């Protein structure tokens, strides 16, 4: 295989799709065509036009502006949740795999139990406790995702801990914490990168589903899920209110999925073929 075909087969539109959503989300933070929460009863149910790219809803709010804000909410909430899960899962997984024993067994039991509950369901249960809130949403998803990270790190550590370089680090008198941080964790980066894109995708999906139910991000913040829930009631008058928020979710997820696939092929060439 020549060099160019290798490069071509690694080309993926994923980063472009994700990058464009990121860019739009950043733009949305500083500028939107209209105030996303401004009511304009003179222009209710306005179809997509040059002034209002995606049309307006039953309160005359500009859907394009709301989708821009929704992008930053979705990305920020999902991103923070995945980071929390990565941090918690890595620490717990490394500790469990490194020390083994009763600590490991206890943690495994807890993580297995969390994994035994369907993800959205557990998040729903946690949101039932906290009520709709951004912090609750982040916490709920972080707890739901931690066991997956935990398992990856733990099994990596279990296979690493007998390797010579870990033994060398111990023989040099390094403390366990140091050995874990500088020698064990860096070896988990590749599988964790692939995993975190997958988790980010499910986070976007979970957030929009729970916000759709009114149990995620509080309703005063525009989110794609909440927009779909509003749009559902004005189907007949404004179909665009359902079409565009869903397209936004699908576009971002498509980007994340393509990105994840190419990342996996790149980091784990064995899985590519």
């Amino acid at each position, binding site marked *: 295989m020549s060099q160019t075909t290798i490069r071509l087969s690694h080309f993926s539109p994923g980063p472009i799709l994700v990058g464009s959503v990121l860019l739009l989300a950043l733009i949305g933070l500083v500028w939107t065509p209209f105030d996303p929460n401004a009511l304009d009863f003179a222009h209710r149910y306005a179809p997509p036009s040059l002034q209002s790219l995606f049309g307006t809803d039953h309160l005359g709010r500009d859907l394009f502006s709301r989708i821009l804000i929704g992008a930053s909410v979705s990305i920020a909430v999902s991103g923070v949740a995945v980071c929390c899960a990565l941090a918690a899962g890595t620490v717990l997984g490394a500790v469990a795999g490194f020390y083994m024993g009763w600590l490991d067994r206890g943690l495994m*039991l*807890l993580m*297995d*139990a*969390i994994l*035994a*509950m*369907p*993800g*959205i*369901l*557990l998040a*729903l*249960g*946690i*949101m*039932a*406790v906290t009520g709709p809130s951004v912090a609750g949403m982040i916490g709920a998803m972080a707890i739901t995702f931690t066991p997956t990270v935990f398992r990856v790190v733990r099994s990596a550590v279990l296979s690493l801990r007998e390797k010579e370089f870990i033994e060398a680090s111990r023989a040099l008198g390094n403390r366990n914490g140091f050995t874990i941080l500088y020698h064990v964790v860096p070896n988990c980066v590749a599988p964790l990168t692939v995993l975190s894109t997958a988790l980010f995708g499910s986070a976007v*999906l979970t957030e*929009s*589903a729970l916000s*759709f*139910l*009114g*149990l995620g991000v509080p309703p005063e913040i525009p989110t794609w899920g909440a927009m*779909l829930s509003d*749009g*559902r009631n004005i*189907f*007949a008058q404004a*179909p665009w209110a*359902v*079409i565009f928020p*869903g397209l936004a*979710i*699908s*576009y971002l*997820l*498509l980007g994340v*999925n*393509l990105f994840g*696939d190419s990342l996996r092929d790149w980091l784990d060439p064995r899985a590519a*073929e």
Partner: protein
Amino acid sequence: MTYAVKRIFMAGPTLLVVAIIVFTLMRLIPGDPAQLLVGDLDDAGAIERVRREMGLDRPLPVQFGIWLSNILQGDFGRSAHSGEEILPTLLYRFAITAKFTGIALLLASLISVPIGVVAAWRAKTSFDYAARLTAIILVSMPTFWVGLILILVFGIQAHLLPVVGYVSLSDDLYKGLLYMIMPVTALVVGELASIIRMSRSSALEVLQLEYVAHARAKGLSERRVLLRHVLPNALAPTLTLIGITLGNSLGGAAVTETVFSIPGLGRYLVDAIYARDYQVVQACLLFVSFIFITVNLLVDLCYPLLDPRVKL
């Protein structure tokens, strides 16, 4: 045999920890459960009575013990909202959800396993690329949005299908089926993609094995090679995925059933959360987790039937 016994015994502690998690979650809810049940802030006597009746004045571990032993005897308590016993409603609602998820999963597997196997057989042809592209696009569309779009196109614009609602199959078979078309389609679309991807990659692995080459060298037709040698061996990992998919669609039922106004278990849970009916929330969470664990257990126990290398 030891594996099977071990696997069944391992499910026990997991279920117990799930029960502890669910119980703790519901106790973390701000407010006094007894007060929530009575609903009347001033009636101190009633609150005190409920508290004693439900054992809420006892230490938490004791409360947990009482709750768990009641559940093991089939007593899920009563709904704070309607006063009905929870278990009969729970089972009735679950039967509805199970019908939708079961039919959808069956259809999705019947469609996508052959597609995945053929895509692997014809790897790197236009069929393969088309299948993979379709899969990645489908997997990116949220099921509830697909549902909304189906309603928009077939219900509101074309007036072909009833928009939302539910008619029991035993009441009116034709109407019941008509109401099922859209929700089931939305579920199938969501499940197709992951099953195609999984069956493709496991078939790809099997195709490279020596016994496939041997089967071909014997002069078997490609059809026979695929049906007798590749498909059965590619099915084992796919079965595991199907177990996980079932769990996801049980969890996702909360959203799909809201979209289509189906009175299933998911809707029961969401309505209970809105109504702050925590007895019901607790029961639903535990019940669905129990079903999910049981399904995965069954999948694990069936695995050796498909892949004899894994011994029970």
